[in-house]
């Protein structure tokens, strides 16, 4: 089995030797810097708090209360702000200014770009070998087709992880350059389904990105399956991207049907169990969703494997 590392190395290096991969990384880098530049120029409410931050928050709250007595439409917004400030004071957590960590947390939305890039790689990794004709050279080695397919799947996952690391590190560096660093792992106060809570920055990064990875993982596996069954990268990428975009609408459309809870996209966003929105159907639980995801994953992998290992490799 020492061989499989060589195979994975082969597959990963084939991904990174291609120019198109580097273009994707440049695209991602430009996006991160653009987001930072836009945030830096528009976010004026970035307030720094001094030594006597508790007094500062107190006066801020008084001002906010006055303001909402005059302007009725500000009530909701200001109440929330007051509650947050109160939480800071009650728990003795000094508010930190917007910094690299918070920029990284906000960039969790860019993980959908990583999903897109991973789908592109996953959709091509089997289909391209057929297009180049090199599949014949791969399959006439003393290695089973199962191991070849496995090495390709692992290479896709490695690509996703490297790209995720790239997003995290570059976001942090860009954030540090634009907004500075507030500390090694600052404590943040956020609002979730249970109300206001304090979290550490690194914890928030892990959970924020971690949940997004579920969707990435499932769509990449889906694209991989289409790629190995139909040997057509455009079809694989197109279908996966379309479903990724339209997934939520599809679920909403069928929300009143009992079976809608079995649709993949009703289950890919596990954060719904931790937010006020909630799942598509009331009876759904986190465990149910994980079960559905596992079943889909097994189907995708099994279908890829059955077709790839059995079908004849004939001429184009």
């Amino acid at each position, binding site marked *: 089995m020492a061989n499989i590392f*060589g*195979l994975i190395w082969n597959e990963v290096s084939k991904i990174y030797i*291609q*120019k198109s991969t580097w273009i994707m990384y440049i695209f991602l880098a430009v996006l991160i810097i653009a987001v930072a530049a836009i945030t830096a120029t528009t976010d004026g409410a970035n307030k720094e708090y001094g030594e006597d931050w508790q007094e500062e928050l107190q006066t801020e709250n008084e001002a906010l209360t006055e303001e909402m007595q005059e302007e009725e439409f500000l009530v909701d917004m200001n109440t929330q702000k007051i509650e947050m400030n109160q939480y800071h004071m009650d728990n003795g957590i000094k508010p930190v200014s917007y910094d690299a960590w918070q920029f990284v947390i906000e960039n969790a939305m860019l993980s959908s770009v990583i999903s897109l890039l991973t789908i592109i790689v996953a959709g091509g990794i089997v289909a391209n070998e057929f297009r180049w*004709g*090199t599949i014949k*050279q791969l399959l*006439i080695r003393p290695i089973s087709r199962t191991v070849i397919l496995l090495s390709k799947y692992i290479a896709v996952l490695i690509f996703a992880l490297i790209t995720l690391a790239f997003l995290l590190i570059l976001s942090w560096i860009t954030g540090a350059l634009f907004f500075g660093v507030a500390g090694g792992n600052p404590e943040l106060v956020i609002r979730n389904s249970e109300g206001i809570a304090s979290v550490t920055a690194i914890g928030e990064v892990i959970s924020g990105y971690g949940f997004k990875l579920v969707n990435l993982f499932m769509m990449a596996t889906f694209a991989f399956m289409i790629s190995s069954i139909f040997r057509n990268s455009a079809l694989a990428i197109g279908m996966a991207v379309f479903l990724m975009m339209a997934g939520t609408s599809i679920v909403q459309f069928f929300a009143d049907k009992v079976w809608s809870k079995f649709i993949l996209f009703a289950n890919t966003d596990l954060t719904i169990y931790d937010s006020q929105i909630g799942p598509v159907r009331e009876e759904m639980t986190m465990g149910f969703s994980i079960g559905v995801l596992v079943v889909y994953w097994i189907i995708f992998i099994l279908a890829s494997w059955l077709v790839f290992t059995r079908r004849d*490799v004939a001429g184009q």
Partner: protein
Amino acid sequence: MAESAMELVKLRKKIGSKEIIKGLDFEIHKGEVFGFLGPNGAGKTTTIRMMVGLMGITDGDVRILGKSVKSDFKGAIREVGAIVENPEMYPFMTGMQNLKHFARMSPGVTKERIKQVISLVGLENAIKTKVGRYSLGMRQRLGIAQALLHSPSVLILDEPTNGLDPAGIREIRKYIRRLADEDNVAVIISSHLLSEIELMCDRIGVIKNGELIGIQSVHEQQAEEDPERQIRLEVDPVDSALRVLKTHHGIDAGEDGGFITFSAKKSLMPSIVTSLVSGDILVYRVEVSSASLEDKFFDLIGENVIG
């Protein structure tokens, strides 16, 4: 008898209800160059794809050094190097990157071995160039280098001369002969052009409509000092000439548009002509064909091999 390197045992392939390969049964020996000849669509590539496990075998088996492709794929394929159809490599990688890529897929390929195959096919200067910029001839050579990396006992080349100029064909012929003669490799070469493989093969098997219709040893043919040749005579009168041939030489000649045709050894011709002339037959023309393999194949296939 030479040792067998590859054995086809009643090999069959069915796609749907159509039988494409109808029971191929032959063997290829070590150190032999075997030509696999047949018109396009005869089933050459399908057979080769079954030999290397790209296509499933419907019935029968392929054995490489006694190991079955069906039941011991890894053991069998370890002994095989192949180019199936075109020598396709990754165009965005250099020749060296391509070779290293494939070296990682076979056990025990050393750096020295990679250098060795590069120098064997004479690609030292181009090895750091991207394959996308290679000419077809260079790609063909890289393909051979790749197929030889793991020192296989059997080398399979599917239409290796396709798209090559005469100089390229000569070069390939040179490598192949050396591999068979010096390294005792069994080489299988498919082609639809007899003229291109005739010079490098020891034996040629002809396939048509999925059936093997004959195997011909090239050396036997050349070794025969005075082979039977096609003779065509323009004589008058034809019927008495036929009688003379029958009675004096025991030849059953045929008549073909005023000509008499039969096969005979060249050395017999003077005495045949003498007996015709002494029988008062006018001999206007004597044609002796230069017997080539091509005629044999026309006979075997019943049509032009080039098809």
